């Protein structure tokens, strides 16, 4: 007797749980031959709001963990991903990638996580500095995480792109809410399963699936979000983000490049993007 396939239900990832969207809506993902791959949650602003609440709640404690510890957690994510390599390769192939490309993307993703895990306790030294000042002060600057970051994940390289964006965000002590690649969101939710089985505290990374057009304005306008990262080159969308973000002086970062597999897509400057420079004047003679 032929076996009936057991298909996965792809749901959102919010606060360390996998809830369905509040809206009860879905959209379909099809492959090149127009065959249905999965029904995905079509998230609404309320899902985003809930995710921000979780991201905000855990942000302080995540920021206060030692840098070394955050690096270890990231390394653990890489370990978990390594163990499930074949699943991710298969999932990427379902969406039309060749085996070679899929394998390459998954391996690069793992390496990228490890790259940023390594930077966790080093970026602070690189970007912090001491300034010579004329008065009797010891004047120095250091980096502090900006807080909650909303992310419109790249459409290209659904796995590698997402990891390249979120690894530098969380390694710096931020928490984030991500809209998974609209074209191929499945792999983003599978990555959430990896996060959930590693030591990333619930709420540090929240992943939604849905339509950019619908969610963009909420990602940009929410006042409890401190920064937004947009991956893409749609000028109209970029303008809308910049306009709405001005409401609460949100930091806006646009990544227009699409070569996420390239070495130039990993650098400590991606960490610095979501860091606030804090300068301290410490009196040294009273």
């Amino acid at each position, binding site marked *: 007797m032929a076996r009936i396939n057991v298909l996965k239900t792809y749901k959102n990832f919010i606060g360390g749980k996998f809830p369905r969207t509040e809206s009860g809506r879905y959209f379909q993902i099809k492959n090149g031959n127009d065959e249905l791959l999965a029904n995905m949650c079509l998230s609404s602003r309320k899902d985003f*709001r809930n995710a*921000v609440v979780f991201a*905000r709640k855990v942000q302080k404690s995540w920021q206060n963990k030692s840098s070394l510890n955050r690096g270890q957690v990231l390394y653990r994510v890489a370990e978990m991903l390594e163990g499930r390599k074949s699943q991710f390769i298969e999932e990427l192939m379902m969406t039309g990638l060749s085996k070679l490309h899929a394998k390459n993307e998954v391996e690069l993703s793992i390496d990228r996580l490890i790259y940023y895990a390594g930077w966790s306790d080093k970026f602070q030294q690189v970007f912090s500095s001491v300034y010579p000042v004329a008065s009797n002060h010891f004047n120095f600057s250091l980096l502090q995480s900006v807080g909650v970051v909303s992310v419109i994940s790249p459409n290209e390289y659904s796995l590698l792109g997402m990891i390249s964006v979120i690894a530098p965000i969380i390694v710096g002590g931020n928490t984030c809410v991500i809209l998974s690649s609209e074209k191929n969101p499945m792999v983003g939710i599978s990555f959430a399963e990896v996060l959930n089985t590693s030591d990333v505290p619930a709420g540090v990374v929240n992943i939604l699936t849905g339509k950019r057009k619908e969610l963009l304005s*909420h990602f940009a*306008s*929410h*006042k*409890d979000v401190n920064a937004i990262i947009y991956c893409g080159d749609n000028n109209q969308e970029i303008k809308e983000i910049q306009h709405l973000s001005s*409401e*609460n002086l949100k930091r806006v970062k646009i990544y227009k490049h699409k070569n996420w597999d390239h070495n130039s897509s990993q650098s400590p400057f991606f960490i610095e993007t979501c860091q606030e420079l804090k300068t301290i004047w410490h009196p040294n003679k009273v």
Partner: protein
Amino acid sequence: MSFPNLLTVPKIDKIGVEERVNRFCKRSIKNSSKTHGLHLALSMIDLTTLDGKDTPENVKRMCYKANHLHDSLQGIPKVAAVCVYPTMVKYAKKELKGTKIKVASVATGFPSGQSSLDVKLSDTKFAVNEGADEIDMVISRGKFLAGEYNFVFDEIASIKEVCGKAHLKVILETGELDTLDNVRKASEIAIYAGADFIKTSTGKINPASTMPVTYVMLNAIKDYYKKTGIKIGMKPAGGISSAKIALQYLVMLNETLGYEWMNKDLFRFGASSLANDVLMQLQRQESGYYESIDYFSKD
């Protein structure tokens, strides 16, 4: 005031209650009704601080908040009451002079209720003398679970006596009563012993207020009303932290007891963080954006 006939108390169908409660959570509420509901929820809040670390200063701060929830929002109501420990009553009373906000005080060895009747009575008297408008007492759960219903009944009745004009809310601490049948039984005892309000929880025990428990208590109130024509109030407390949950409670209230109960004289929310969440939702309805909690006062 007579002891209820516990043999005729209906048995609770737990699955049925849960099914019914689930239905309340699925109502679609139009925007204008939602705004109205949020305003109503705000006006029903007992802003609460019940910590060992409470000081006159933080009680004063909370009273200020009770009176000025969020001044930049126009036309929002004030909360119904503040709820504090007996020793803090006089500070709250002083701060809220001239407003219609009531001062509620917990009493009778809150939260465990493990003290002698003498201590409980003098605890209550003290709170009343300090000026408390409402007394939130706890029942002796240990005695209740041991089946000493008469003891529980007498205790509530004697506290009611020393309350005088102050309203009496009886906390059943449903998280410790184990079954819905017990919740119903305890509700009957409290109502017949003279409670003006019945209240779910102290907020110190998990689970605190849940919808099934509140539903059972609302039905006890309904049956009592049918029999005697007397309206008893309801106060779910603890665990109601978001506007969404508050609206679900209001839907349940409306569909169980009806519109007559939809006011602060007969329904209260015991909560500390609910007010800010409701305010944030109202703010969003006005501006279209979700706000950051940084723009609201701390609880």
